[in-house]
């Protein structure tokens, strides 16, 4: 179904449009939220809250962005709120906005990786970096799309992506789980 038609149907309260939106975005959104929050229960709560907010405010949706971007923005904000509520997670404020792409670790060519170690390090990553890594690698969004979604500067997104990768590579190198 064409997106503009889908939005029209949602505004009219057509059941098939609601079912389609939940089917199209539901599982994908749940997986993204799970990667960010690390808990299926919390991810499911966020997804439910997201759709409820979308349905309540569909009348106000003007179509400035795509429906998908709008849904994802709500989900990301709700996920961020949850992470902020957890006292052990520091702020999402980045202290370095410029892209640090010329790092030695960044440029090292990885020949073999201990997958289990990488998985462990990945889920230990700070949510600020995990967020962009999930959106870039899992959602396959472009830097521009992530920039719009997170309402951040392009440099900030690039920097977080690069630093996230560096942290992972650095931690794996320290533990001897990576061979360059």
């Amino acid at each position, binding site marked *: 179904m064409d997106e503009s038609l889908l939005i029209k149907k*949602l*505004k*009219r*309260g*057509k*059941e098939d449009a*609601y*079912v389609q939106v*939940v089917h199209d975005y*539901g*599982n994908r959104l*749940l*997986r993204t939220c*799970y*990667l960010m929050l690390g808990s*299926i229960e919390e*991810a*499911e709560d966020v*997804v*439910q809250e997201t*759709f*409820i907010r979308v*349905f*309540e405010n*569909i*009348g106000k949706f003007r179509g400035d962005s795509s429906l998908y971007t709008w849904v994802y923005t709500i989900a990301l904000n709700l996920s961020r709120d949850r992470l902020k509520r957890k006292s052990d997670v520091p702020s999402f404020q980045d202290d370095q906005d410029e892209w640090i792409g010329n790092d030695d670790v960044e440029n090292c*060519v*990885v*020949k073999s*990786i201990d*997958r289990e170690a*990488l*998985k462990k390090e*990945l889920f230990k990553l700070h949510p600020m970096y995990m967020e962009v*890594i*999930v959106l870039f*690698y*899992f959602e396959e969004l472009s830097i521009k799309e992530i920039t719009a979604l997170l309402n951040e500067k392009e440099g900030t997104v690039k920097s977080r992506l690069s630093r996230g*990768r560096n942290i*992972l*590579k650095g931690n794996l190198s320290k533990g001897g789980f990576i061979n360059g």
Partner: protein
Amino acid sequence: MDSFEKEIKRIMEEETSDIVLSKKAMDNILGHRKKNIKERIDGLLNKEIKIPIAPVIIGFTALFAIALIPWNLSDFQSVKIIDMGGSQVIISESREVGMKRR
């Protein structure tokens, strides 16, 4: 995308491949959807209305009492009519005072 980045992607895909929204969550989400006009009218027509029986009975009884009881019954009792040939003499205990007309 280098092998490291491919590995990151693969891990995330594998970790989430069997994650799906539960039926309960799905029902909860769709339960919050905006209702169309027909559904809203149906909802209104099928709405259960609870009427407390005691106040309703008391109300109806009071209404019947007001409508049926002859409130000027005492006036009838205080008036006697004596037929005297072709005339009638009305003897009343109370004196009715009417408006003075010119």
